[in-house]
């Protein structure tokens, strides 16, 4: 509860700070301080110290899983603001408003991690999305940004329409908006009406849109490519992971394999296969690192979908670890990408000579995304695949996923190859020592989690 109320209040505070604070660079520090307060309040909430005692009538339900994810999301946003805050300042004249919108996105995120009613799911998704439409189009004179904003807006509200239809149909079948109802429909054997099944399928499609799973991914590359890089970084990490948490909250029920009304495992495995296939194969052919990262985010979504496939405790732990590892690595890669003058693969040629430290940290982030051992990404992928093996069926899916993880190594290594083994003069903006220190800290976190995953996983007992 702390995080929901505080993030909304802090958003309003940021909006007003644009009136009172004339110094642009001070805004970044205000935002970072606000995020720190939010983080501490949320951790306090996790350990039973809630500032607000409100009877919520089960509209919201706070469990350890959701609160841990809040911590990861807010922490990742804090790192994002610290690393890229200066670039947010450069992206336009309305810096305070951008930070305010980021706080409102976090408010949506905290609703999504704790909803107990479909109404709250709807409101959470909208609070998460509407600020993002604005951030996507924040580069007003740039046609690519315009296109991205209009595509994102139309596709986003289209999927909202589908989701609402799903909610209405489930309501028609069951007479309730409570979350247990959805879960019971999802897990039930027989006697489920056509309305409920249709509603659940609509919800599945809408959520697949939001997490950009494959048949519904087509908006992702254009939007991520067109949006200003600073905001792509935020969209591709924190927001995507939040949508996944909402997804797993919605469908978190034990499904009995054979006699369920619909073979949900089959549906999810189709989603996973097509997401991994399309994401990885198209990423191989990209010429721009930014667009490659957009496709790679689709491919990573394929791995996160494994949590929805297996739906056991290991999958939930794995999803948290994956969200943390993926967000940290991607935020780091984007922080470097924003500093590059040229974001094609050629633009990275020879970065190791001009900026050895950035090249080294970038390598760690890329290795983590590829899932190489001794990085956080390896354990994240390991947990996801182990959770599938634990369910005992569909083991071939794991083999398939490992093959595609190998394919993904190809396009991540292309960047490393460009940085270290190609001759060229990579042009970057001026790099401050503070930025370098930040990158080293993020890289260190990734390696420490990779070597000692127990340190972070010991928190995840819920």
């Amino acid at each position, binding site marked *: 509860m702390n995080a929901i109320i505080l993030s909304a209040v802090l958003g309003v505070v940021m909006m007003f700070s644009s009136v009172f604070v004339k110094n642009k660079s001070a805004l970044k520090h205000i935002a970072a301080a606000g995020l720190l307060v939010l983080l501490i309040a949320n951790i306090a909430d996790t350990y039973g110290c809630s500032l607000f005692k409100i009877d919520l009538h089960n509209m919201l339900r706070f469990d350890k899983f959701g609160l841990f994810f809040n911590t990861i999301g807010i922490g990742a946003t804090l790192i994002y603001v610290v690393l890229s805050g200066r670039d947010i300042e450069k992206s336009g004249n309305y810096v305070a408003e951008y930070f305010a919108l980021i706080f409102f996105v976090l408010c949506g995120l905290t609703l999504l991690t704790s909803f107990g009613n479909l*109404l709250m799911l*709807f409101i959470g998704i909208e609070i998460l999305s*509407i600020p993002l439409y604005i951030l996507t189009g924040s580069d*007003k004179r740039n*046609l690519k940004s315009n*296109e991205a904003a209009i595509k994102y807006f139309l596709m986003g509200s289209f999927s909202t*329409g*589908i989701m609402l*239809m799903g909610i*209405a149909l489930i309501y028609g079948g069951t007479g309730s908006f409570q979350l247990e109802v959805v879960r019971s429909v999802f897990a039930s054997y027989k006697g489920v009406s056509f309305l409920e099944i249709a509603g659940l399928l609509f919800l599945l499609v809408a959520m697949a849109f939001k997490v950009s799973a494959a048949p519904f991914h087509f908006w992702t590359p254009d939007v991520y490519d067109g949006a200003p890089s600073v905001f792509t970084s935020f969209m591709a990490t924190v927001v995507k992971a939040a949508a996944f948490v909402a997804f797993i909250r919605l469908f978190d029920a034990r499904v009995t394999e054979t006699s369920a009304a619909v073979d949900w495992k089959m549906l999810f495995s189709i989603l996973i296969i097509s997401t991994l296939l399309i994401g990885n194969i198209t990423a191989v052919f990209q010429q721009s690192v930014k667009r490659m990262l957009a496709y790679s985010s689709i491919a990573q979504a394929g791995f996160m979908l494994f949590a929805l496939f297996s739906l056991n405790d290991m999958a939930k732990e794995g999803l948290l670890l994956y969200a943390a590892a993926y967000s940290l690595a991607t935020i780091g890669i984007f922080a470097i990408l924003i500093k590059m003058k040229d974001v094609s693969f050629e633009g990275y040629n020879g970065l190791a000579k001009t900026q050895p430290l950035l090249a080294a940290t970038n390598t760690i982030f890329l290795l983590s995304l590829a899932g190489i051992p001794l990085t956080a990404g390896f354990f994240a992928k390991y947990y996801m695949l182990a959770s599938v093996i634990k369910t005992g069926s569909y083991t071939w899916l794991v083999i398939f996923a490992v093959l595609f993880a190998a394919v993904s190594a190809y396009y991540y290594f292309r960047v490393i190859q460009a940085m270290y083994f190609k001759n060229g003069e990579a042009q970057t903006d001026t790099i401050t020592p503070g930025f370098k220190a930040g990158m080293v800290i993020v890289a260190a976190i990734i390696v420490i989690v990779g070597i000692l995953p127990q340190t972070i996983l010991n928190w995840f007992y819920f």
Partner: protein
Amino acid sequence: MPIQYYIALAACLFCIGIIGVLTRRNAIIIFMCIELMLNATNLLLVAFSKMYHGPAFAADATSTAGIDGQLFVFFIMVVAAAEVSVGLAIIVMMYRNVHSVDINFLNRLKN
């Protein structure tokens, strides 16, 4: 009237909306079609709400069964209004740059 009529009407409106979104190229018309989808949902929710409320009301005049469907409709209307304000701003932004609201126009410009 039986509930089936409402479901059929809402399904028709919803399908018109989806077909409009998928086939039209004018951003404003796509936007109208999305609104049509939302309104189909509103209609359906009100109809279901009435379906659950009717028998409960006949048995007990103070019953609030089925009232949450109508409450949901208010939330949809408010959120849709917020979405419209952002969406129209984005469409106006696009119009100022390219003097067109054709969504394929930007694709062509890019290449």
